């Protein structure tokens, strides 16, 4: 992970208290790791190294084991979500209509890879599966706004609106 790209961690003492409580409640149960990680992500919005380190330490397991689970499941994110969350549909219809190019262009313009967040916290980017707007393919959403029938040349214009 390129640490320059990620936002600095700014967890609060309250969040840590909540996390420790969640861990303590789940600790004794076998196979509690995933449930604890889910709740930790609810608390912090994502699972940065600081949070994973607390989980590993409190459960007495190696940090790698936590990280291995975090990177295995798509539902866990190592990066925070931006103020504007961009989702590019890579479902079949959008994909054949060139959504892959749009996704690439966004990564290039934002300087981040899919799943990451820009250093200023403004945009985060992710791929999603069909959002049910195949008639408008290819489609992307920025928070609640939906943009359809796109070409990669539309990307800059969309970003400029935010």
């Amino acid at each position, binding site marked *: 992970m390129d640490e320059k790209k990620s936002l600095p961690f700014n967890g609060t003492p309250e969040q840590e208290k909540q996390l420790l409580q969640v861990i303590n409640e789940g600790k004794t149960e076998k196979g509690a790791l995933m449930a604890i990680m889910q709740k930790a992500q609810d608390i912090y919005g994502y699972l940065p190294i600081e949070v994973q380190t607390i989980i590993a330490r409190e459960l007495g*397991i190696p*940090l790698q084991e936590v*990280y291995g689970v975090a*990177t*295995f499941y798509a539902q866990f994110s190592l990066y925070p979500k931006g103020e504007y969350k961009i989702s590019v549909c890579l479902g079949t219809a959008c994909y054949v209509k060139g959504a892959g190019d749009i996704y690439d262009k966004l990564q290039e313009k934002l300087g981040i890879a899919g799943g990451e967040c820009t250093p200023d916290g403004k945009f985060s980017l992710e791929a999603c599966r069909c959002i049910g707007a195949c008639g408008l393919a290819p489609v992307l959403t920025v928070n609640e706004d939906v943009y359809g029938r796109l070409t990669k040349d539309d990307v800059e214009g969309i970003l400029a609106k935010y």
Partner: protein
Amino acid sequence: MNMVNIKINGMPLSVPAGTTILEAAREFGIEIPTLCHMKDLNEIGACRICVVEVKGARSLVASCVYPVNEGMEVFTNTPRVLNARKKTLELILSTHDRKCLSCSRSGKCELQTLCHELGVEDEGKYDGDRKVYTLDTSAAHMVRDNNKCILCRRCVAACRQQFVGVIGPNNRGFETTIGCAFEKDLAETACIHCGQCIVSCPTGALAERDDTDKVFAALADPEKHVIVQTAPSIRATLGECFDMPVGTNVEGKMVAALRRLGFDKVFDTDFAADLTIMEEANEFVDRVKNGGKLPLITSCSPGWVKFCEMYHPDLLENVSSCKSPQQMFGAVIKTWYAEVNGIDPKNIVSVSVMPCTAKKFEIDRDDQSAAGVPDVDISITTRELARMIEKASIKFTKLPDEQFDNPLGESTGASVIFGATGGVMEAALRTAVETITGKELEDVNFAAVRGTAPIKEATLNVGGMDVKVAVASGASAAHALLTRVKNGEQFHFIEIMGCPGGCVNGGGQPHQPASVRSFEDLKALRAAALYNDDASKGIRKSHENPMIKKIYAEYFEKPGSHKAHEILHTSYVDRSKDYAK
């Protein structure tokens, strides 16, 4: 025992219930091939190389995890089975860096062997997308090459068994790699350099850092006086690299090979093991008599020392300040030996042959340069020595038996058992008990601390005082024992080795395939060679080694003297905050 009757390839067989098909077939003389399986450690049935046909079963089954049951009919070599195994290999090869000719594991690679045995003709049959990974050369002791990784997870199991668990599977599916948390380099983690991952790896994905070129360069330099020392356990394992049976003592041939490689002096780390005992036994007696910190814990194993610095820094005061035998030996070479022979220590290259990858880390530690230059310049493993012997076209098995050079080739039975778990404790007891009681031991054998159990304990009555000792090998066992110490259990003296079974099973020892590691007791077979050597020696107590007596009389004065402290002792650091665990 509850037995079940099965048939393998039509022939009847009766085996204990609960046996796997793999184990049953072994009884029957068929060694079903495996790649991911390591008994008791990594039984995950993932690689599918060990598949067999079971009558009535819907699909082929993984024999390594499939238990037998009454009336079962197994077929191990039908075309369906052989084709499935071959296809699995072809698929593994599709993402494998197949530079076999230049691979350090060539000839000893389990994947290569299977491809040969199962008749893979086209290694590029399923070529397609392939990830290219950069090598992780960050750690002092090893190189990780994920391009040769087959994701069997044997290293992961070995690392977790060592309580460390710094490597594991990251990501998913085609993206899966074995790596560290947050894709950090190994050097940034709490790796203890034990090398247990390397001896678990079936391919060339994990290997020690090869330092043999440095040794060849030193040997070729006429200005340099090049000295080699060999650790106690090397004589019990080196023969395996030349297809000799496990547990063959090859001390004489090893010395002959080193001489033919061109070392100016071929010495024995055993001498320094005796020296360690003198210093450590003295430290122990001193702590007992003067109310020092107890238990005293041994410091020979650099993997263990680093484990303590990372995971139990609050116990560092308990760790003996003695340098390890490797470092004591190097220190004696660069001080006493250099002085006596009128050689500038800067012109001495001190090489060690060790069972251990952590020794490569240890030579660069702080406070390990008694003469202002490193005590040991280059540390190579048993495997690297074998590589040098091969490269130099020395026909190892045809060599005559030769003797170590003097004066630092003289050693005792006490020192040679350092290579097995419990050996340091036994050697220390032989000296410490005689020192405390002032009487000669009737029996120098301390059977209670022998054997391959992870933790061994004994209470000995020494001069009217009950002395409680314990021995742990492997970092997990060490952790378990230290947890008991922290909970208030009283011990006087503890020996800890970083690798399970001690140095005979070190991370620098010869590769043996999983089929051997799973079903033969390597630790015990190799250790037996050392205990036999001990029993055959005229002198079996360190303090009776005539050269040890001489060096104290002429140079160190007495164990624990100011000079001994300057040259033979070291210090430790708390590393618990520095690394990702």
